[in-house]
Every structure is written in structure tokens, then in C-alpha cells.
């Protein structure tokens, strides 16, 4: 078991100024990284014995249209069962967002990334099975983007002829 302080030190010692931002809130810590460092930071969090974040608790996407330069963001919530600690890593993405997949680190990222892709249009490169998860396969648009209409059945239709396929 090591403390959160030691985890912070370890991560900051390893990546230094490549960690763009740190937010401490109620004994939990969130780091922001550039999309290019996403894969490297997360692999380090999983593989380094002092970090040992062996579980990806969840991976979520956000749409923040008020941030014109980088309206999308992806947050990975990590849990270390070895050290009993939690850590969040987030990254900001520009329009037409893409990010490398982390399914090779944590297979549980598969569903989370599928959901972030279908709801927000964040493409995860290298994902083995990037299909729609919660909507019908011919759905058009990204319903959790803030510019998606709140009302009306736009985008989705009742497709009984897809009965055998979905």
C-alpha cells in the first residue's frame, strides 16, 4: 500500500511538465494530459509497480461546447486494488476527436469506448469492435452532443425489419 502523495510524486517525477494540470478534490486527484500522451500515461499507470492501477473503473466522454478550441474531453477513472487508490486522467480533444484505444490495457474499456463513440462521436483508433451499443445500428448523429435536438425522434426510427439482426 502506498499513499496518494507517493503516487502523485511518482507520476509527476515520471512525466513532469507533460502533466498539463492537476486538480485535488476531496482526497482524489485528477491529471490532465495531452491526447498524444494518453496512451503512455495510462500504460505507465497500469504497469508501474508503484502505481498498479489494475482496473479501469470507467471511461467517459464529455461535450463542452463552451471550450471552443477543445470541446470534447475523455476521462479515465482508474482504481488500484494493490494500493487502494483512485486516480483520474483526462484529456481534451478538438473537433473530430480521435484517441487511441486502451482496450489492450483494460479489456473493460471496450463497452465504455463504444458508448463514448456512439454518444459523442469520439473515435477510438484500434478498437476491435467499434459498433453502436445502445442505439439501433442505423442511427444517425451523436445524441449526447449538446447540439443534438432534445426533443423528437430525430436520428432514430422504429426498425422492425431489423428484427433478426440486432
Amino acid at each position: 500500500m502506498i499513499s496518494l502523495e507517493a503516487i502523485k510524486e511518482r507520476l509527476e517525477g515520471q512525466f513532469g511538465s507533460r502533466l498539463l494540470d492537476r486538480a485535488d478534490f476531496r482526497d482524489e486527484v485528477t491529471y490532465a494530459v495531452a491526447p498524444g500522451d494518453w496512451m503512455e500515461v495510462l500504460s505507465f499507470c497500469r504497469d508501474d509497480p508503484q502505481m498498479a492501477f489494475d482496473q479501469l473503473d470507467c471511461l467517459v466522454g464529455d461535450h463542452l461546447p463552451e471550450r471552443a478550441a477543445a470541446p470534447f474531453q475523455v476521462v479515465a477513472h482508474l482504481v488500484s486494488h494493490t494500493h487502494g487508490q483512485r486516480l483520474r486522467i483526462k484529456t481534451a480533444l478538438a473537433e473530430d476527436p480521435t484517441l487511441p484505444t486502451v482496450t489492450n490495457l483494460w479489456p473493460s474499456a471496450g463497452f465504455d469506448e463504444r458508448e463514448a463513440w456512439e454518444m459523442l462521436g469520439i473515435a477510438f483508433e484500434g478498437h476491435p469492435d467499434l459498433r453502436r451499443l445502445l442505439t439501433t445500428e442505423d442511427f444517425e448523429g451523436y445524441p449526447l452532443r449538446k447540439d443534438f435536438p432534445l426533443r423528437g425522434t430525430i436520428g432514430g426510427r422504429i426498425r422492425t425489419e431489423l428484427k433478426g439482426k440486432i
Partner: protein
Amino acid sequence: MGITGSALVNPFDRGIQATGEDSLGGPVRLPGGFAMPVQIERILGFGRSFSFWPLLFGLACCAIEMMALGGSRFDMSRFGMEAMRASPRQADGMIVAGWCSTKMAPRVVRLYEQIPDPKWVLAMGSCAISGNIWDTYGVVQGVDSLIPVDVYVPGCPPRPEALWQGLEMIRDRIKQSRHAYDGLRRIPARDALTGGTGEA
């Protein structure tokens, strides 16, 4: 002429042509001129109405109230309805309890189609009736756009008593041999018996 051959399959099913304007009046005619007095069907309906077995099927929060009706406080087994069937093949109808998403819609239709005739459908809650406040990309605006519905029970969610009243209305319809699909859809067996003109 008596009942012979294939006409014996299920002469009491409403799948066989009912003549007359009013589906309650007049004898039920079988092929070959045999007429089944409507009273027999009434007796069968009376019997059926005491063992309406719904499909074990809940879509959303309304299903919790449906379970409450099945539990000991409201206890729908008093009316022979407690045997929720897990297979549509054994069910007499379905209670659509909750909102139906566009992704679920094909499954709801399939489950409905798998229930053998005669069958009755109860739409429980505002979501199943009209989509409720979920006028969004994912929710079907009323399951009656998918399947014929016999009884609507409004509420969000309806109290178990309301669902009970709805089931009583279903029982009335069972006794009268009335179905929401009467005149709405073609039933292959019925068509085969009546030479393709069979509209009940």
C-alpha cells in the same frame, strides 16, 4: 355435418371466422357449415378469464409496481393471474410495463408475435401509452404504434390498484372474446380456413 378433420384443431379459437357485424353476436362458423353456438365460446371465455397468465416482462420502472401487484400485499394470484410466464409460448398476453426504446421495439414485437392466439395486451404507464416526457431520440412514442393494445392504464407509475383494474378490464374482454387485433391483422391460420377472405 359435424366437426371433422382439421377443423378439430382448435374450434374454440377466435382464429376461426366469426360471422355477423357484432363480434359478440351470431354463431361462430367453422368450415363445412358447422356452427358453434356463441354460448360455448362465452363459457370458454369465462374459464379463460380466471387464468390470464401474462408474460413475465418488464421494461422500466413501471415493472416495479407490476411486481408489487404480484406480491403478497396486492396479490393478483387471487384472480388467477399470478403465473407470469417466462416464455411467450405459454402466455396469454403481455403487460407492457415501462418505456420501450427504439432498440427494444423489435424485441417487443417479436415477443408479441410469439404469444399464441388469443392474446391481450395491456399498456401500463404513460411511457407505454405515449412516451411520457421522453420525447427523445430513443423512446417509442407509445407502444400502440408497434402492437395492438387492449387496455391502457395511465399513471407514472400507475398504482397496483390501477393495474388491477386494468387487468379486470382485460378479463371482461376475455369473457367477451374481444381482442385489440380484431380486424387489424391477418392471421395465416384464419386465412387458410376461410380461403383468404377471413377477416374476423
